């Protein structure tokens, strides 16, 4: 048998049909739905008189729109259009009989945090969701990617997707990370190197010592941003850490089924002689704590660097950089560590898990945020929030001057009331620094939770290593 990559193996195990022209029908093991990209899909089913093919493999949770303030049980905190979307999901979940975590459930949270937390996401699975950050689930050695609403409807109706196979790309991070360098710095540094279109048409497998050394939560952070590098999916071969994480979760297999699953899961790795269409290698030791300076996730620099000039770039990027600097209100040559901020946002499917909150709290313990700064922590799920309270992290955030919120997507995409004002500059642990992403005219600098916490203390972009 010819050697295969991990992606090849998962693909082959889910192939229902392949046409002569290479168009494939791929079986989907888990379909996650949220309130923003699903209403039109459910409506389409109704209009055609169709049902959900596999409601047991379909999991719904509202996250994008929901308020994160403590008074959110009061429906008046939601705008009418948001409330209609959440109510539509409530109704669709009930009518079509899918698994559901409503806003009132302590397990509610960001769909990409809830899936792994509840054991829905397992190695070797195909996982889709009408959200581009579905790549997160690739951390388990699952083939996971975002889909559009027409495809959501297609998966609901058939439990399959029409696909063409992508190419294989290996991203290897060798060696050890230096102190203060995190999974977020890895994933941003990769995008900084390959560009936001570098992964287009590929599925990325992240590997190497620095990736193996990451916890499952760190691996989720890395895979989460595969899409920011253009790759629909990023994945990491499962290992003992993966199995340990999955074991005992509510929807993970038990007993004999667990043993059977483990037997297969242990075969899920890329064969030694597998063919790679593209290989990128970065030395772990060369990765620094980074921040973004522009309006594309590829605009990445070490915190010790200065704001670049448009003339530092080539081609279409010259104009793009000029536009970015203008939008961001930055002058070329300014040291990044001198850029003052107004707001800090810690949360999102990229960095809203318990280890992210621990890393931020470790920096904030016994300290206060800079006077006049607005700072909020939005845990990724109700269970993350409860655990952070139990561990005393919530109190550290509150004592430092942070708002301690309920779970949701919040200011990562600002569909709920958590938004930046025009010109407001934010140190954010989320995944996109696009124009207007966190609110019209808002300026976003992406970074790790520890870096965001350090910025909260000083009121400017800060090298976290100075505070360790």
């Amino acid at each position, binding site marked *: 048998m010819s050697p295969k990559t991990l992606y090849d193996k998962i693909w082959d195990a889910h192939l*229902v049909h392949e046409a002569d022209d290479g*168009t494939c029908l791929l079986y989907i093991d888990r379909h996650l739905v949220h309130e923003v990209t699903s209403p039109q899909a459910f409506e389409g089913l109704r209009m055609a008189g169709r049902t959900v093919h596999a409601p047991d493999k379909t999991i719904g949770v509202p996250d994008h729109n929901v308020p994160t303030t403590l008074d959110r049980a009061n429906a008046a905190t939601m705008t009418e259009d948001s409330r209609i979307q959440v109510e539509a999901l409530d109704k669709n979940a009930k009518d079509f009989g899918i698994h559901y975590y409503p806003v009132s459930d302590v397990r509610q949270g960001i769909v990409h945090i809830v899936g792994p937390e509840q054991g829905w996401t397992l190695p070797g699975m195909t996982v889709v969701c009408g959200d581009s950050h579905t790549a997160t689930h690739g951390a388990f050695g699952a083939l996971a990617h975002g889909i*559009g609403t*027409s495809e959501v409807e297609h998966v609901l109706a058939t439990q*399959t997707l029409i696909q063409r196979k992508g190419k294989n790309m290996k991203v290897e991070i060798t060696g050890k990370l230096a102190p203060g360098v995190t999974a977020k710095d890895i994933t941003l540094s990769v995008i900084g190197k390959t560009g936001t*279109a570098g992964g*287009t048409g590929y599925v990325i497998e992240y590997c190497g010592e620095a990736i193996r050394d990451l916890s499952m939560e760190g691996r989720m952070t890395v895979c989460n941003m595969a899409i920011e590098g253009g790759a629909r999916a990023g994945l990491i071969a499962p290992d003992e850490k993966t199995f340990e994480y999955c074991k005992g979760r509510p929807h993970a297999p038990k007993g004999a089924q667990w043993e059977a699953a483990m037997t297969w899961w242990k075969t899920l790795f890329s064969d030694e002689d597998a063919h790679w269409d593209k290989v990128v290698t970065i030395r772990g030791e060369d990765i620094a704590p980074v921040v973004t300076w522009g309006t594309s996730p590829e605009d990445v620099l070490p915190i010790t660097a200065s704001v670049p000039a448009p003339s530092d770039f080539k081609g279409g990027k010259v104009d793009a950089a000029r536009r970015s600097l203008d939008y961001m209100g930055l002058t070329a040559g300014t040291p990044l560590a001198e850029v003052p901020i107004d707001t800090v946002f810690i949360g999102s499917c990229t960095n809203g898990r318990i280890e992210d909150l621990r890393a931020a709290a470790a920096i904030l313990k016994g300290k206060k945020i800079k006077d006049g700064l607005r700072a909020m922590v939005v845990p990724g799920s109700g269970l993350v929030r409860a655990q952070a309270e139990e561990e005393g992290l919530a109190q550290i955030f509150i004592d430092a001057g942070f708002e301690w919120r309920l779970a949701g997507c919040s200011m990562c*995409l600002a569909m709920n009331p958590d938004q930046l004002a025009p010109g407001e500059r934010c140190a954010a642990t989320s995944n996109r620094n696009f124009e207007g*992403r966190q609110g019209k005219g808002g300026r976003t600098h992406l970074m790790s939770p520890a870096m965001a916490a350090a910025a909260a203390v000083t009121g400017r972009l800060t090298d976290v290593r100075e505070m360790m």
Partner: protein
Amino acid sequence: MEKFEKLTGIAAPMDMINIDTDMIIPKQFLKTIKRSGLGVNLFDEMRYLDDGSENPDFVLNKPAYRNAEILVTGDNFGCGSSREHAPWAIKDFGIRCVIAPGFADIFFNNCFKNGILPVVLPQEQVDVLMKDAEKGANARMTVDLDAQTITTSDGETISFEVDAFRKHCLMNGLDDIGLTLEKAPAIETFEAQAATSRPWV
């Protein structure tokens, strides 16, 4: 789905790289439970000034391009989120074909589900079409999906590649779900086998 066969129309030039889905349709317009009506908010933040009036400098607000049916643009168009609201807004505005050196995967895929033809061409050929589009309303381009060609207002013809299955679906306005349901026996067979080989799923 609306068929796409052949289109002759005005092409709008938008010479920017990395136009993301937040630029195409900002998040505040995603709170709809319908597919229609998003055209008025296409490129909202670039298209309107803070007071809500039209930005006269934005290409689709210029008299020549208000009825554009083709968009010629820069690399990595449609990067970012999976929101199908982006192609819905483009289609609702009246644009049926987007030409660029490259597209983000999910956006590219979403176009075909909505009767929009995304065409990938080398940068030099996009540059030719960009120049042609810059001539304004009198310079009409023709996109012929059957022949897989684009003809400029000067009569220069450029060929493009398109996946055969996607072309077939676009030209005939076929519904993917209907096509897949014809393969229901294969799906059932797969599920029966998986119930034995991967019962935990």
